[in-house]
């Protein structure tokens, strides 16, 4: 748990994960609170917890739970798209306390397959290679899933571009027609007007 950043006590920080469907995501975090008296971050703060909320691309909430100051959360995506993982502490203290902030350590792993530790411990050489191969196969499956997802997105991209193209063409035609018809109407209307005013 090496990477960390600072956030306010009541602040909500979100990260975005673009995932293909059926992908397991596991997150580890640790949160520490700044102590004014010691001028350092406390190693453990009793009662401090974090709300972890995961939202799917369709807006549904996949996971919404309160964990302690240190915890692990996981979820599996069933839709492919941008999932938003939000963290907010459950602190009810007033934010007016100057210098009050939280140090948030985070480690997110996507699509990782957790291997059986006991299988690795086996001294048998064949078994070790077996284990490695299984891991490689898992990685390849993940690559394939990502590629399928990429194909979906490229299709969406292409549709948007083609829609833009046909929009431009359609509106150009419509505007030209409006221009011509309004021009004709203008001339006719003015001519009739001047004739009625006996100016022509």
């Amino acid at each position, binding site marked *: 748990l090496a*990477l960390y950043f600072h956030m306010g006590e009541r602040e909500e920080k979100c990260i*975005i*994960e*673009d995932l293909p469907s059926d992908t397991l995501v596991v997150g580890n975090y640790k949160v520490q609170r700044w102590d004014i008296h010691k001028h350092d971050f406390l190693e453990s703060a009793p009662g401090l917890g974090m709300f972890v909320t995961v939202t799917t691309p369709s807006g549904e909430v996949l996971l919404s739970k309160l964990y302690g100051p240190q915890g692990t959360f996981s979820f599996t995506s069933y839709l492919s798209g941008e999932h938003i993982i939000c963290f907010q502490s459950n602190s009810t203290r007033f934010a007016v306390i100057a210098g009050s902030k939280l140090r948030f350590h985070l480690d997110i792993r996507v699509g*990782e397959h957790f291997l059986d530790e006991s299988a690795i411990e086996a001294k048998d050489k064949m078994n070790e290679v077996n284990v490695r191969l299984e891991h490689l196969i898992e990685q390849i499956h993940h690559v394939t899933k990502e590629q399928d997802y990429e194909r979906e997105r490229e299709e969406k991209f292409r549709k948007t571009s083609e829609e833009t193209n046909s929009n431009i063409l359609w509106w150009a035609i419509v505007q030209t027609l409006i221009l011509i018809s309004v021009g004709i109407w203008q001339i006719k209307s*003015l001519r009739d007007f001047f004739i009625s005013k006996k100016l022509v």
Partner: protein
Amino acid sequence: MPPRGSRGPLPPLLLMWALAACAARASEITFELPDNAKQCFYEEIAQGTKCTLEFQVITGGHYDVDCRLEDPDGVVLYKEMKKQYDSFTFTASRNGTYKFCFSNEFSTFTHKTVYFDFQVGEDPPLFPSENRVTALTQMESACVSIHEALKSVIDYQTHFRLREAQGRSRAEDLNTRVAYWSIGEAIILLVVSIGQVFLLKSFFSDKRTTTTRVGS
């Protein structure tokens, strides 16, 4: 998202792994940076570790962000303004907490989505040589080369995914702009043309009695 964090499976001797001077870690996070905001990340790195920071802006405005990397003494190792994508490798010259920040303070109303990948240390070898007496068998060598190839496949895939996301974001922006502008222009056209005629008619209206009519 490719499997990151611990790259390969743990070596058989867990003790050896725990003693490894540079435990390889990689954190990749995609987050939204609001306008006029700055977001900093910190990581504790041991001396001599080779680290790589790579970042890319995916959506927002002109797709650029300021990035700055400082060592524990505050010495700026890397500083670039308004960069769209960059990759920076450095070796930690001393122990301590390194800090890198992304800033969107130059932008007034566009918030950006930024992706970064911070890799610390090299990956541990797949088949550690401490507990063996013979060289790697063909099977193991094949495993190692497949692993390396897969790592680079995953790397390319991530880059491609980000580029595609960026392209798609631009295309969707363009589409919305074309739609709004076209509708707006059509309405302006109609309003102005009809307005012109009525305005002209009003110049010749009968309200002014001094206007003489020819041949009344």
